[in-house]
């Protein structure tokens, strides 16, 4: 039975949900800042704002990653070694963080559906 869990990879697995949330948050924030400061916020593709489409794309990637992590966590595939090492707590925590991260990404990105893009406030 493998009872040795490497700390760094275990931490990354457990925290993957929040790390993806952080990467998504940074990406959409920096992207909007760059578009508004140096890009073309009025650009459109197929009648829809390119910026919003790109935010949607970034969000879709994050959701796909989080969905994968959540699914793997819930199935226990990823965390089998944690289970074997008598650490069901970490397996649970990884799954909960992934689900929390998924909700947080959707919630954070939601304003892109209707809030004005670069209007100075």
């Amino acid at each position, binding site marked *: 039975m493998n*009872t*040795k*869990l490497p*700390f760094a990879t*275990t931490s990354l697995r457990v*925290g993957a949900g*929040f790390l993806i*949330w*952080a990467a998504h*948050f940074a990406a*959409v*924030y920096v992207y*909007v*800042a*760059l578009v*508004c*400061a*140096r890009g073309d916020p009025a650009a459109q593709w197929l009648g829809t704002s390119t910026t919003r489409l790109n935010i949607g794309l970034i969000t879709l990637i994050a959701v796909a990653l989080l969905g994968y992590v959540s699914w793997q966590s819930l199935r226990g595939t990823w965390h089998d070694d944690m289970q074997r*090492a*008598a*650490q*069901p*707590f*970490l397996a*649970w*925590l990884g799954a*909960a*963080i992934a689900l*929390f991260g998924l909700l*947080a990404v959707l*919630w*954070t*990105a*939601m*304003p*892109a559906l209707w*809030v*004005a*893009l*670069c*209007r*100075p*406030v």
Partner: protein
Amino acid sequence: MMSERNLPNPAPRPPSEFDKLCRIWRPPRGWRFLSAVNNTYIGMFYVGTALLFFILAGILALLMRVQLAVPENQFLSPDTYNQFFTMHGTVMMFLFAVPVVEAVGVLLLPNMLGARDLPFPRLSAYAFWAYFVGGIVFFCSLFFDVAPDGGWFLYPPLSSIVFSPGVNNDWWLLGIGFIEISAIAGAIELIVGILRTRAPGMKLSEMPIYAWAMLVLGGMIVFAFPAVIVCTLLLELERAFHWPFFMADKGGDPLLWQHLFWFFGHPEVYIIFLPAAGMVSMIVPAMAQVKLIGYRLTVLALVGTGFLSFGLWVHHMFTTGIPQLSLSFFTAASMAVAIPSGIQVFAWIATFAAGRAKMHTPTLFLLGFLFIFVLGGLTGVMVAVVPFDWQAHDSYFVVAHFHYVLIGGMVFPLFAAMYYWIPTVSRRALSERLGRWVFALMFIGFNVTFFPMHIIGMAGMPRRVYTYAEQLGWGPLNMLSTVGAFILAAGILLFLIDMARNFRPSATETAGNVWNAGTLEWAPNSVYALRSIPTVTSREPLWDQPTLAEELDAGHWYLPDAPTGKRESIVTHPIDARPQYIVQLPGPAWSCFIAALGTAAFFLLLTVKLVAPAVIGGVIAIAAIWYWAWTTDPGPIRLPADIGGGITLPVYATGPMSHSWWAMVVLLLVMGSMFMSVVFTYLFLWTVSPDVWPAHESLPALGTPITAAAALLISAACAQYAHTRLDRPHATRVALALGALTLLGALFLALSAQWRVGLSPTESAYGAAVYGMLSLTGVFIVSTVMMQLFTLARSCYGLLNAERRVTFDNTRLMWLYTVAQGFLTLALLHGFPRMTG
């Protein structure tokens, strides 16, 4: 009656063993007590000093309240008022709140985790003394009318040399920047202590919730504090040498300060709150005499808050003209963070409901905390809504909000914690009778002071005004606030009286487990912490193993003696807490004390432009740190030690198993965070001021940076070569020397490439950003070279070989990191302008 179960050391222990343990852990006497490093003593010094600053900053608050009690008052001059509100906020945040949460951790965690001490006691002592001396001198700037006066977040351009030409704000920049280094040292100590010195069997799932909170706190400090250190350095460079990071006419931007400051500043709120929440999660179960409901969800909430808190900083900048959609992302994150806080609140309420809460003083403070913190949280959701924030920004509504959050979320839990945990370090518990009065006065006083501020703020009173006109009608509510402030102060004065009457600090005779709590800090302990170290199988071992306290005290568990004749603790695996080796802990020493004084002298004397004495202070600090470090790598000189139960452990570990490797990795994360802050600075300034970025033809030719990169590569190769040749001293020394020379050569080439094309750090924000990044990398290179020379010296003295190699391992980590940062610096400075130009 002791149980019949298998104990590692079931036989009675010889009396001589106990005497030896006491002798080894005995603190120095008389004036030499200043060289004590044991967590119990340093923890008590630390908490005491933080409380001193709490009282001093509180006195400033009272004087401000006197000034504001009536309209058009002349009790304080505008300049004095500016210094008072700046120092009140600065001292409360930087000299009280952050230090006290770390201090309580230093004091409690080893006992709670079943360790004899934290893994780097001298680092704790260094961090404390640097903070103590720096803090006292910083505070004394008030008495010379040179205290900072630009507000606790010191926004430029007000704090720039143009509008604040005196040394006032230099005190803030150098004093606070340096005290944050002390906070980071404390965080490294706590992280490694929590992950590596837990009692055998104390898996992450069995770890006390307070340790989880402190682990999250440590992680947050590692990633948040570097941003404030970098922004203070940048502003000081601008003030002292006119590098225009924040000057709009040269391509700088004052908003850069706000981004960097609040990237630290908002997590800071949770850095203060999470440890307090951890304390609450420990006290509630003891008061209710039932296990915490929702342990797993509470851990999730702590980790979630830690992450989400890094996505909130712009909500302090809603009125700065940032694009509307960007603001909305931060509004969403600001609302989302209420959810993990809510989870914890429900966990505490459920735990109270599940047990039979006794109305002891800690319970009262916890109930007060719940009431006040929930109100502060609700107004927090209000100011997270952009249109509302536009109305409330910089008004007394915000003052009311953050005092509800900070005093409710941190001060009330801290008082609960003091009433709760003082019996672990004092011969007597504090008075229940006085405690109730303290609570009543503080609770009433707090609400009378701060609730009216919501109304005054909505009526339009801005924060930070030293007086107001009578016809505005703010007088009666301000008078009410002032009366409340004195009631609150009376509560704190009564607490001090209670302390004077009942607090009798002692590491050897304590009041004991007066609350019938279940965690290990309540087991009998002394200067050596627990007499023996148990196998932990649950979160409340004293509840689940009724005879455990007695067995521990009788030395029937692990490590009842000191097999190496030195101070020791057991180092365990970070996840499942398997025993891995015995660490020899350093004892009392003057080196860390002198190093702290030297460090403080360096920074504080620079503030008043006494450069030569400052340099002497810096040299003393470096010499003391060298002397201190010289004794910290004892090598595998002893046979494995028997800790009982048939377990023998090595007394030395190298590579990733070593606790010092872990500390080094955490330090590298800090350095990486600093570098990322400088990268952000460069990219942010490019975003706002492309006009000061050079054209292709003005950039240095690629030959020199490529040569610099080659030098870095050779240096890295030297590191790897020495790594595999430590058994050959001569080869090791050549590799260390060549590695140092090539690093310095790379730095010289990188700087000369910019200088030769005529780039000056003062001419534009671009020049400032380039030299700022090179300066940071240069500081890391010089630090690495000093470590290489130190390692070289140890090799020359025969203290380095293939087995005795912890010093080299640490140097190599720093070395390789610096090389990696060097590559990134060169790539960014020479690649980015070519890509975007």
